[in-house]
Every structure is written in structure tokens, then in C-alpha cells.
């Protein structure tokens, strides 16, 4: 093997470094019409009237479209509960009520400002707790605010707590996180004969096509989705936001239309990571054996369903982290509110669950006077362990090896004096560790498949080249190169002899989404199988091509009351060690060093795996420390990059050690698992543990802003002083 594992430079880099790469907003051409949306800018209200004559009278305005213009005015990834343009009620600030189409973007925006919508405000439900209160206002009149209440029951928690020598309780909250993909949402749409074409950015060609075809009541084959270069996604382009709007304008007016959102529109207009409130109680024996855990996780799903129920289930099955605990009771509840919808974001409920679980494991260790590493060693999953959902883990449980590797790296790299001299009076340093588990691919019986076609250019004597058709979104992660490497390796061809057809829903088959860390595993396996099948056909003298649909081992839905089920077919395991420096006068926390260890099964392209780890860590630093998105009465208060603080070069640690462990998955191509989400999973609790190590204070709310760190330090100081005084008395 020569191409697998090699750090082959990415071919798309040439266009990206010269500016030749075309992102959606670069596709706008002279003569196109431009669309601008009229946003609701209120949390919950009934639409009384839409007065559009002022906009229509504006020279250059071609149309003002409303709900009546959408044939089937519903969409959504799992439940179609969202209107493209609201017909009677708006349910969050970013809801759209009208679309103005004009000769220029400036006129369209001007027109949008002249659309006068009269509303009757309705009581707004602006927190998950409010949504659950007795007699709460319904967000959707025809259904309960509770999207899902998932229980998981294993063993007997009451009996478990009786065996415990120490029982700790904890309450954790996490906030919204914005994807902040750097390329704001944009697209163009036009008719090509009988086909409606949409060129945009997304994460799943064929799912975008399914939802958009349904909205315009068109056969799916008459809708063509083409992805331009995609400027990041991270789960944020899984839900349709701008794309169906520009498609509506083109569909209706039968003219090419362009639409480009500014950053504020992008932030208020698309979903976020779910805020969670996790209330939890853990019990352990004196030797560190964890005997029981009780966890209630309440998530704010926002105004529309998106993927909330799946996120909640992931948060529920990982509520105990990667630990084998005999007695567990988890209650996960996700609700509708009048806040911004929550949905997929790198980690998919797992970072929130781990923040609580891993913090509790470290707290238990301190309460018992044990080393947090030893408590982990005692309880970490091993091969054959039963998940809380009642069945054995998928084979290849490597978390113990991953954790030991992390400890070795920590000993080697953090080996300077155990406690270095404090750089200044107010600066304190500390080290924290945490572990993580996250599924690769779709869970809970969701139909999981990936399809690829390989067409060989071959003479009877030799295979000269191949065309690989695979509908995999290249969101920046390097999927196209990795899939090409897999094809080249399988067919023993040089990389240049493999041509990829990937970005057009009518030219490439359905490979599923670029999400859930699944594309290398699922797309890669489909490409590998198709390449092998095409070669078999060639050897047999048949037409040298093949289309293969790969289906991984079966998963099943979870029983609502017990959680019984087989949730996943593959896991990625992680362990991290971080060193932080806290200024105890200001609460400002900096991450100085990170060791991030991941079992990726097999690194198809080492350089890109390391790139995924480093990039994901930047989002993890933001999630843990800087990215604060508060809301007031449903309104997001930091909808700009000037107020929503993404990590810069100066916020990132200068020492990052990505460590790749390769314990092959039995089904992944060449043993590959997945990596994209993994570094986000244990990071925040590792930082929390490091802050505790540095200051003696636990922070239980994400992000751990300076204010929160300072408050935690002050509260801890007050408690210590109080107990010291009590002792004196």
C-alpha cells in the first residue's frame, strides 16, 4: 500500500490558493435577479397582514413572494414542520415571511425593508423550562412542546446508590454554539429545460433534492442540486436555510436568481448547537468503581424539529461517557421553544453529555482522594461491555488503549516540573484529562447506506483509469481526496488516473451526508466495494463498471421507556490532556497545551486527519471558553463576528499534539473509522478539570467565560472561608 496513509496534498488547494475556486456567492452573474428575505424579527406572533404594495411599487422589484406561492409549504430533515415562508404564525426571530425578488441585491433588500407585516404577538416560550411548565403556550398549536422524552434504564439505580460510598450531585448548563462556517449562505437557481437547478453549498445533495422537490411538487429527477465550493459546514448546512428560498424565486419567475446572505442573516437564519441543562447524580465505591448514575438532560430544540430527536438520543446514550456503569437511569427531554432552532453541529449532542459526565468522573475521583486517571481505568469500557441500551458495544472497543496512550504522551510532554513556578501572582496553571466516545454514522435504525459507482477505463490487458461517482459533499474536510485515495489504492492506479464526479445530484449517486464523521467510513467503503466489483467485472470480461450500495451492520430504534436497542455500528474513541493558565483576578483562561488522542481506525491521509484534529480543537476552544451566544426573549444577542468571539491565532494553544491511534474497524475501508467530531467530545470537561486543578473551582456552565470562571473562584473561596470559620468555632 502506498497511497493509503500517505499525506497526499489536496488537489483542490490549487484553486483555493489562487482565488479561482468558486463559492456560491461567486456564481452570481450579470442579468440575474436577486432575492432578499423578510425576516420576522419577533419570537412568536400571528401574521395579520402582509402589505407589500410599497415593495412592489419600487422600480426594479419583480415580485414579492409569500406562503401562497409555495405549493407544499413544509420542509425538515426528519419532520416537515417548518414553512419556507410562514403563512399564519412566526415562531422565531429568523423565520421568513416574504421574499423580494429584484434587479439587484440592493433593490431586493430595499424592497424587503418596505414589506410591512402586521403581527399580533403571542406569548413566547423562550426556555426549555418554560416549554415544560404546566399550561405552557404551545409553540406548534397542533402538537405538544415535548419533541421527545427518551428514557434509558439499566440495572437498578436505587440499589446502586445504596452500594456507593460517595454520592455527588451536579448541575450543568451549555449554551448555543454557532457554526460560523466562514462562507455565508448563498446560491443561484435557474431552469435548464424542464429541470430546476440549484447551485449552492450543503452537506447532502440528495436530501436537499428530496426536500426541495417536495416543496415544488416536482419529480426528484427534475430538481438538480449542484454544490459549488463549500466554505465549511460543521452540521450547519444540514438543514435547508437559504437554498430553497432562491430556488423558490427561480421556480416561480422562471429566471435565474441569486441570493447571498450577510453574516447576521446567516446567524439568525440557521440552526445552532442545542443548549442543555443536565442534572445528574453519580455514586462510586471507595475503590473508584462507579456503581450508579442518574441523569436528566433537558434540551432546547427551538422553533422547529430539525434533527433534535436524534441529537437528544445521542446525548442520552453518551450520558455516562465511555464508562461501564451497572445501574443507570437517564431521562432526556427535548422541547420546542420560540428560540432559534437547534440541530446538527459537530458532536451532535455528545459534547454536552460529556461535559457533565467527564466532570462528574473527575469530581468523584477528588471526593474519594483518588487519581482521576485511576478512576477512569477502573470504569472505562472494554471489549464486550454492554451499553446502557442493553447490548454489547460494536467490536473494537479501544478506549482503554487510547486513554493509556494519552497518559503516556502527557507524561512525556507535560513532564516539566509538575507545578511550574507561577509566571505572575495572579496566573495559575492546571492540567485536566477527559475521555470521549462518539458514534460514526447514523444511529437508531435510521436507514444508513452509501452508494458509489466506479467506471473503469480498461483494455483487456490493463486498467488505465477510473471514473468514481460518489455524491459526497466536500465541505473542506478533504473527503474527495480521501475517497480518491481509496479508489486509487483499491485499483492500484496512480491518483491522477482516478477522476471524481461528486457535486451534481444527477451525476453522482446518493452517498448520504457529510456528517456524523461518516464519509470516510461509509463513502469510502462504497467506493472500495464498487472499485472491487468493477474490477471483478473486468476480469470476467463483463462491462467494467459497478454500482454498489454499502449498508453497515444494522442498528435499531431505542425503546422509549427502557432505551433497549442497538444504537450504533461503529464508535470513535478519544482522550485528551490539556494545560490551562487562569488569571484568578480576571477569570481569563488560556489553553496552553493540548494532547488529543484519537482512534481513527486507519488514517487514510495522515496530514488531513491531523488537520481535522487541529481544526476541531479550535471549535472546541471556542465552545469551552469564548463562543458565547446569549438570547433575550428569543433574540440572539451576538449575531456578528464582532460580538460572537471565534478563536483567533492568539487564542489557540501554541502546543497541539494530535496523536493518531489505528485500531482497525472490521467494516471500515482499510479499517478506517471517523475523526471529524471526536476532538470536540472530551475537550470542554478536560478544560474544566484543568481550571479546577489550577484554581480549586469547578465551572459547570459552558462557555466558561471569564465572568463565570471568576464567579466560580469567588464562590469556592467563600465556601472555603465559611467552612474554615465554622471549624474555628
Amino acid at each position: 500500500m502506498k497511497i493509503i496513509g500517505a499525506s497526499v496534498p489536496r488537489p483542490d488547494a490549487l484553486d483555493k490558493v489562487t482565488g479561482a475556486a468558486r463559492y456560491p456567492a461567486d456564481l452570481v452573474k450579470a442579468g440575474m435577479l436577486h432575492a432578499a428575505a423578510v425576516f420576522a424579527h419577533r419570537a412568536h406572533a400571528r401574521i395579520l397582514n402582509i402589505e407589500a404594495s410599497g415593495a412592489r411599487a419600487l422600480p426594479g422589484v419583480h415580485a414579492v413572494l409569500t406562503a401562497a406561492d409555495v405549493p407544499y409549504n413544509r420542509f425538515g430533515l426528519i419532520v416537515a414542520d417548518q414553512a419556507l415562508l410562514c403563512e399564519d404564525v412566526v415562531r422565531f426571530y429568523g423565520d421568513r415571511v416574504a421574499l423580494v425578488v429584484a434587479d439587484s441585491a440592493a433593490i431586493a433588500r430595499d424592497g424587503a425593508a418596505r414589506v410591512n407585516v402586521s403581527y399580533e404577538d403571542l406569548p413566547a416560550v423562550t426556555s426549555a423550562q418554560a416549554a415544560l411548565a404546566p399550561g405552557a403556550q404551545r409553540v406548534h398549536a397542533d402538537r405538544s412542546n415535548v419533541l421527545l422524552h427518551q428514557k434509558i434504564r439499566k440495572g437498578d439505580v436505587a440499589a446502586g446508590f445504596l452500594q456507593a460510598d460517595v454520592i455527588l450531585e451536579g448541575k450543568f448548563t451549555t449554551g448555543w454554539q454557532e457554526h460560523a462556517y466562514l462562507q455565508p449562505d448563498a446560491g443561484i437557481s435557474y431552469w435548464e429545460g424542464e429541470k430546476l437547478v440549484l447551485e449552492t453549498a450543503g452537506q447532502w445533495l440528495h436530501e436537499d433534492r428530496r426536500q426541495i422537490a417536495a416543496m415544488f411538487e416536482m419529480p426528484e429527477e427534475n430538481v438538480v442540486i449542484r454544490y459549488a465550493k463549500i466554505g465549511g459546514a460543521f452540521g450547519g448546512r444540514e438543514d435547508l436555510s437559504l437554498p430553497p428560498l432562491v430556488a423558490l424565486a427561480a421556480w416561480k419567475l422562471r429566471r435565474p436568481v441569486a441570493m447571498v446572505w450577510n453574516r447576521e442573516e446567516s446567524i439568525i437564519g440557521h440552526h445552532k448547537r442545542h443548549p442543555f441543562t443536565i442534572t445528574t447524580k453519580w455514586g462510586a465505591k471507595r475503590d473508584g468503581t462507579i456503581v450508579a448514575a442518574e441523569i436528566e438532560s433537558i434540551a432546547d430544540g427551538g422553533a422547529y424539529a430539525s434533527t433534535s430527536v436524534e441529537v437528544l438520543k445521542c446525548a442520552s446514550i453518551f450520558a455516562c461517557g465511555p464508562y461501564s456503569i451497572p445501574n443507570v437511569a437517564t431521562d432526556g427531554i427535548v422541547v420546542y421553544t420560540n428560540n432559534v432552532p437547534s440541530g446538527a453541529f459537530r458532536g451532535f449532542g455528545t459534547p454536552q453529555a460529556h461535559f457533565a459526565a467527564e466532570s462528574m468522573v473527575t469530581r468523584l475521583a477528588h471526593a474519594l482522594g483518588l487519581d482521576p486517571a485511576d478512576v477512569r481505568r477502573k470504569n472505562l469500557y472494554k471489549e464486550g461491555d454492554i451499553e446502557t441500551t442493553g447490548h454489547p458495544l460494536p467490536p473494537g472497543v479501544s478506549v482503554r488503549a487510547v486513554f493509556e496512550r494519552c497518559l503516556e504522551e502527557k507524561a512525556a510532554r507535560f513532564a516539566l516540573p509538575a507545578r511550574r513556578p507561577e509566571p505572575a501572582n495572579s496566573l495559575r496553571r492546571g492540567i485536566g484529562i477527559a475521555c470521549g466516545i462518539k458514534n460514526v454514522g447514523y444511529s437508531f435504525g435510521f436507514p444508513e447506506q452509501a452508494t458509489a459507482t466506479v467506471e473503469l477505463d480498461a483494455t483487456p490487458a490493463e486498467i488505465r483509469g477510473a471514473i468514481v461517482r460518489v455524491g459526497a459533499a466536500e465541505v473542506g474536510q478533504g473527503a474527495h481526496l480521501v475517497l480518491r485515495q481509496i479508489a486509487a489504492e483499491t485499483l492500484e492506479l496512480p491518483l491522477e488516473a482516478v477522476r471524481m464526479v461528486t457535486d451534481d445530484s444527477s451525476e453522482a449517486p446518493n452517498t448520504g451526508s457529510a456528517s456524523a464523521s461518516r464519509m470516510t467510513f461509509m463513502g469510502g467503503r462504497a467506493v472500495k466495494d464498487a472499485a472491487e466489483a468493477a474490477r471483478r467485472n473486468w476480469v470476467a470480461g463483463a462491462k467494467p463498471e459497478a454500482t454498489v450500495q454499502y449498508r453497515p451492520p444494522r442498528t435499531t430504534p431505542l425503546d422509549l421507556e427502557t432505551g433497549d436497542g442497538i444504537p450504533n455500528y461503529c464508535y470513535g474513541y478519544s482522550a485528551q490532556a490539556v494545560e490551562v493558565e487562569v488569571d484568578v483576578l480576571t477569570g481569563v483562561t488560556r489553553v496552553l497545551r493540548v494532547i488529543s488522542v484519537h482512534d481513527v481506525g486507519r488514517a487514510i491521509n495522515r496530514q488531513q486527519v491531523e488537520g481535522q484534529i487541529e481544526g476541531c480543537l479550535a471549535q472546541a476552544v471556542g465552545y469551552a471558553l469564548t463562543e458565547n451566544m446569549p438570547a433575550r426573549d428569543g433574540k440572539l444577542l451576538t449575531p456578528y463576528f464582532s460580538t460572537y468571539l471565534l478563536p483567533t491565532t492568539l487564542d489557540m494553544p501554541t502546543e497541539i499534539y494530535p496523536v493518531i491511534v489505528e485500531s482497525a474497524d472490521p467494516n471500515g475501508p482499510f479499517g478506517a473509522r471517523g475523526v471529524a467530531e471526536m476532538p470536540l467530545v472530551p475537550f470542554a470537561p478536560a478544560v474544566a478539570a484543568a481550571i479546577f486543578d489550577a484554581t480549586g473551582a469547578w465551572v459547570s456552565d459552558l462557555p466558561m467565560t471569564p465572568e463565570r470562571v471568576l464567579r466560580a473562584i469567588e464562590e469556592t473561596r467563600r465556601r472555603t472561608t465559611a467552612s474554615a470559620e465554622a471549624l474555628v468555632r
Partner: protein
Amino acid sequence: MARVEVEVNGTRHELEGVEPRLLLVHFLRERLGLTGTHIGCDTSSCGACTVLLDGKSVKSCTMFAVQADGRAVTTIEGLGSSAELHPMQEAFWAQHGLQCGFCTTGMIMSAVDLLRRIPNPSEGEIRAGLEGNLCRCTGYENIVAAVRAAAAALAAMETPKTIGELVEVGGR
């Protein structure tokens, strides 16, 4: 409406009817079709629109096109071509200093200006110099490595040239 005379990537442009409030970035993208300069925010926070103005980096969303009158602008399209990449472009490719690529062009322009000011920067100087450019994909590690590699490549290019000149002098 204003008249703007500006040199962009070595070509002189004289444009009539420029709306005085038109930002330089929109002028470059919409009037000249130079879409390698990207728009990532609207608050001059992200740096995706960075270009060189008379050789110095500037966020092209922070100035009006009319302010570029009589001056020279270099965009990513003028830095190098796919046939002959600028060493900074070469380094971002080789060091895997990009993923989605959206921040890359602005990042490269900032880095070019950084090396103009500090030819052999320390890691701290590189990080401080690129603080105004956001990247959401890479975690910056490989971007810093790319700038370091480009600095070395540029330094190496300087040296042979000097030797070449000496040889030429000697041969005379």
C-alpha cells in the same frame, strides 16, 4: 457618482459611475469580477476580504472604492497564477494550510504583508500578524507552518539571486 482610476493587479482601470458608498470589496468582486476576494462578515472581523493597497494589507470591506483612487490594489489573482504560484500560495498548499479555503485568499494576502514587514518572523510574530484573519477549519497550526515555510522559501530565493549577481559581476 464618482470616477475611479485604480491599478488592480498591474492593470489600470478607469471607471465612471462608481457609487461613492461602494465598498472596495464590492467594487473588486462586482465591477471587476475578481471573486477570489471573499466576504465573510460585515463587521471587518474576519479578514477574508484582505487585499494589498500599495503593498500594504487592508480589509477591503473597511474602505470605499473611491478611496482607492490613484492607488494600486493587489488581489489574490494578481499575486501568482496557477502556472507560477507565489511562494506563500505554494506553502499554504504544501503545508495543508487550508481546508474549505474560504479564508485562504485573505489569509495569504495578510501573510504576504506580514513577511514584507518582518521577513523572518517568530511564531509569536506570525500569530500576532494574522490575528485579524479568522479561520474556522484548520485551527491555524498549518497556517502558521505555511507562513514559516514561505519565509524560508523567500529567503532562499533571495540568496541565489545575490550569488547570481556576484557571478555576473565576476564574469565581466
